[in-house]
């Protein structure tokens, strides 16, 4: 049953909604929380117990990549829900709505993971984006509403781009499959539009302007979802397009240029930020640059892209998780200066944050370094040496703001009465959760072999399965005509 996880999500969305409404208001939150966790548990079981047999149905693709990334997304979401529970309860965010929207986002992302034609991809993108717009506005403050509107309008524009591009592609090839005809200008133009829309979705320059605003305006629990899960899922869309040769021809320089711009703009803008969430937003723009660079290499770069995305997601989860853990119920920790002297107040959390930030800055022996090394290695093999050199030089700029955060954590002592100097317990429930990303990053920094081979398998098996061949193209063509039955 290739729709089993998605069917489970739909079932749970409906059940949570119907049962939740019948409950008194104060119980809905806990109920929806439990339902979401149970749902994720079920999905995780389905995804990890079933042996993966590559399967396709129309534009629906089941393979190692989609299943493993779905599993990864579910696990990350599980921890996001867990780490946010306390904060949401106290911060007066509507927890019931939050959980419903989260479930819907998950469904959308799953669809994107499995999408193997333009229409399903578009449905998935929209299904995941709409709940996100709403989620940003859950915090009914001016900044949140502003960010939500901004994201919605720009997002709608991006969706328009994608749809427009799809129509061009369809016009050129007569198919909604991911088929790119390098000879036809129309097809390439269409693909350019689709790529622009996708670049917007992952927040890569020059379509990155929403990222810092949304990160700043949205409540932390929503940022945790926006900053982590969609990036993973959208990368699969890039990979599936790339596996069909979308980025090998005239689009390759475009992608490389976007990637380099993204790194430069992200890193330069992050230098002057004073707000942690904005800083993280710009840093994510920079990271997306490296990811897109890996995509632009071609098939050999895909596994390093997935590896990078996984490490990035876990690290972002760690940083945002730290912010959530340190936030007070009525006050969200968002200014960088509030982290000052954290080492003296909460040494364990400060240590975790330090590890994660050094990983983001790609200092060995942490996983962030391995992720960059992988991409660099593939770039060199694909003979993009100059691009690699530029990318690493830009990374040096990025170092500056990362170690500035470390400086705040460790070097400065805060002379402030807001925080009482009484020693907090070394390890609380939440800091145990924060240990997980740190352990993950350390393990994959020291021995990334197993994760690397997993991501490698995700890609190689797929390329063998779908070698686009002329005969298949014709088949697909008639397939589509069967489905749509265009009147001639």
């Amino acid at each position, binding site marked *: 049953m290739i729709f089993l996880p998605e069917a489970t999500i739909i079932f749970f969305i409906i059940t949570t909604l119907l049962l939740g409404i019948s409950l008194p208001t104060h119980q809905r939150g806990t109920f929806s929380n439990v339902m979401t966790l149970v749902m994720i548990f079920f999905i995780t079981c389905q995804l990890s117990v079933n042996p993966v047999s590559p399967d396709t149905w129309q534009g629906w693709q089941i393979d190692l990549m989609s299943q493993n990334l779905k599993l990864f997304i579910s696990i990350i979401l599980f921890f996001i829900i867990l780490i946010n529970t306390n904060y949401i309860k106290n911060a007066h965010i509507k927890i019931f709505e939050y959980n419903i929207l989260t479930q819907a986002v998950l469904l959308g992302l799953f669809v994107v993971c499995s999408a193997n034609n333009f229409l399903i991809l578009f449905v998935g993108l929209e299904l995941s984006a709409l709940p996100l717009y709403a989620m940003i506005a859950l915090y009914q403050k001016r900044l949140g509403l502003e960010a939500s509107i901004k994201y919605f309008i720009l997002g709608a524009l991006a969706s328009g781009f994608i749809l427009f591009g799809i129509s061009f592609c369809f016009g050129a090839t007569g198919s909604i499959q991911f088929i790119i005809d390098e000879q036809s200008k129309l097809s390439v133009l269409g693909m350019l539009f689709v790529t622009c829309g996708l670049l917007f979705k992952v927040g890569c320059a020059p379509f990155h302007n929403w990222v810092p605003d949304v990160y700043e305006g949205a409540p932390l629990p929503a940022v945790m979802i926006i900053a982590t899960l969609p990036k993973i899922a959208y990368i699969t869309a890039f990979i599936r397009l790339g596996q069909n040769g979308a980025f090998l021809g005239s689009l390759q320089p475009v992608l490389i240029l976007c990637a380099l711009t993204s790194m430069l703009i992200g890193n330069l803008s992050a230098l002057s930020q004073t707000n942690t969430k904005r800083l993280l937003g710009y840093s994510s723009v920079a990271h997306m640059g490296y990811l897109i660079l890996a995509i632009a290499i071609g098939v050999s770069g895909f596994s390093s892209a997935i590896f990078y995305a996984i490490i990035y997601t876990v690290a972002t989860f760690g940083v945002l998780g730290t912010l959530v853990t340190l936030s007070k119920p009525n006050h969200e920790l968002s200014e960088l200066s509030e982290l000052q002297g954290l080492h003296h107040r909460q040494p364990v959390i400060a240590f975790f944050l330090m590890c994660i930030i*050094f990983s983001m800055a790609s*200092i*060995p*022996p942490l996983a962030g*370094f*391995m992720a960059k*090394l*992988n991409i*660099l*290695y593939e770039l*060199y*093999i694909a003979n993009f*040496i100059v691009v*690699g*050199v530029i990318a*690493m*030089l830009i*990374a*040096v700029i990025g*170092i*500056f703001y990362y*170690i*500035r955060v*470390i*400086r705040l954590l*460790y*070097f*400065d002592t805060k002379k402030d009465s807001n925080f009482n100097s009484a020693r907090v317990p070394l390890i609380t429930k939440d800091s145990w959760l924060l240990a997980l990303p740190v352990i993950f990053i350390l393990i994959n920094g020291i*021995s*990334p*072999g197993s994760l*690397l*081979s997993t991501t*490698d398998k995700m890609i190689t098996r797929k390329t063998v399965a779908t070698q686009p061949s002329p005969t298949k193209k014709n088949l697909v063509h008639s397939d589509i005509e069967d489905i749509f039955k265009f009147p001639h």
Partner: protein
Amino acid sequence: MLLHKLPLISILISQSLFSGIWILLSSDDRAKNIAISSSIFSLFLGMLLYLGFDTSTANMQFVENYSWIASLKINYYVGIDGISLPLILLTLFINLIIVLTANDLVNQQISYYLGLFFFLQAMVVGVFVALNTFLFYLFWEGMLIPMYLCIGIWGSQLRSYAAIKFFIYTFFGSVIMLLALIYLSIKAGSSSIISFYNLPLSLYEQSFILFALILAFAVKIPMWPVHTWLPDAHTEAPAGGSVILAALMLKVGAYGFFRFCLPITPDACLEASWLMIALSLIAIVNIGLVALAQHDMKRLIAYSSVAHMGFVSLGCFMIYPIFKNSGHLPSAQLALSGAMVQMITHAFGSGGMFLAFGLLYEKIHTRLIADMGGIVQKMPYFTAFFMIFVLSNVGLPGTAGFVGEFMVLVSAVQTNFWVALLAGLTLVLSASYSLFMFKRVFYGPITQANIEKLEDISPHQYIALSLMVIGIFFIGLYPQPLIKIMDKSIANLVQLALQAKF
């Protein structure tokens, strides 16, 4: 032999790491005892390496080679030869000295402080033993984290500035190096450093690779135009950090010349040798003059450090003109051995001065030379120790500093009269700034009230300083064991460095 069957190097590195974690987690009172015993145990492991070391071959010994990351062809590949063994022993020795004096040098968070130094020890030893480029890079960058924290947490007023400057300078250099290393490992199809030695490379490729490597190593050494982070880092770092910086971190850069530049890009080194010799001479003379003008005692020692490290880079690159002039391998070998010995002896002279000054600073809390004077009346033993460090730094015959400088100078004479003359100037310059500083600080009338209250050093400080002094005299009077360890490896290196690769 049983020793060779043990994975001694891995035991040493993991022992340092685990001691570091243990010390971090223990309380301040217990931390010091644990640190001293683990440091002595590390030194014991180091002695086992020394005992098992075969000086009659240039091959790598105690080799361990396991696959680590298969998809990138990265191996966990470690081993030692005559170039790395003395530096490993030096690392363990210096770490013991720092652990012994830790209580006097920092007042807060001693367990973290000691823990960091054990991580640092693991990383520095790792750099010296790594035979795989990526393993090397991992340790090389891994050093940055503890050092950055050490300067930033325990440093003085401008610590954040100095720490960030240090980090960015070194990180920039290392990233460029990483780019070259990846290129090499793809070209060679293996990331073992040894496999690069016979890899044919065109002069064009070699020039780029050498440029990238030198950028990384020159920042660490530091050589003249990229040395500006060092005075800041040294001045702001706590005494233990300064000692590690002077005695070990700078050596790591010079070690890079020995392990990477000379054998991997010999032709480019030949082409660039005049430039490197010129930069070294500028460092020796110009920085010597700058040191003469310092008011801050720690800055003075830091600049003298840069000037003395100029001898190391001079010795490395002088082999090309010497070989061209004389065509005689042993003379080239003498220059390289001189550079190597200078690396070790500089650690004792400069490191000793930083350590002794750190002890003094904790009592008088000023770094300005003008604020001091007449200390000898209150601290005669301390003054005697300091005198020995100063003399070793000056290069007085009989002390360690003399051996390295003499070997390099003898070779310089064979290169060119002017090179020898300029290099020889350092004897005058370093004598003038060191002794002038010594006179102003230790002699004369007591001008400050807090100097009146000074007491002489305590027994355990006495032990730590004596260990340094023993080292200075041992190498100064009987350098034979040291030279014997490195002899075969240096001879092999000279051959690799003088071969043509294309």
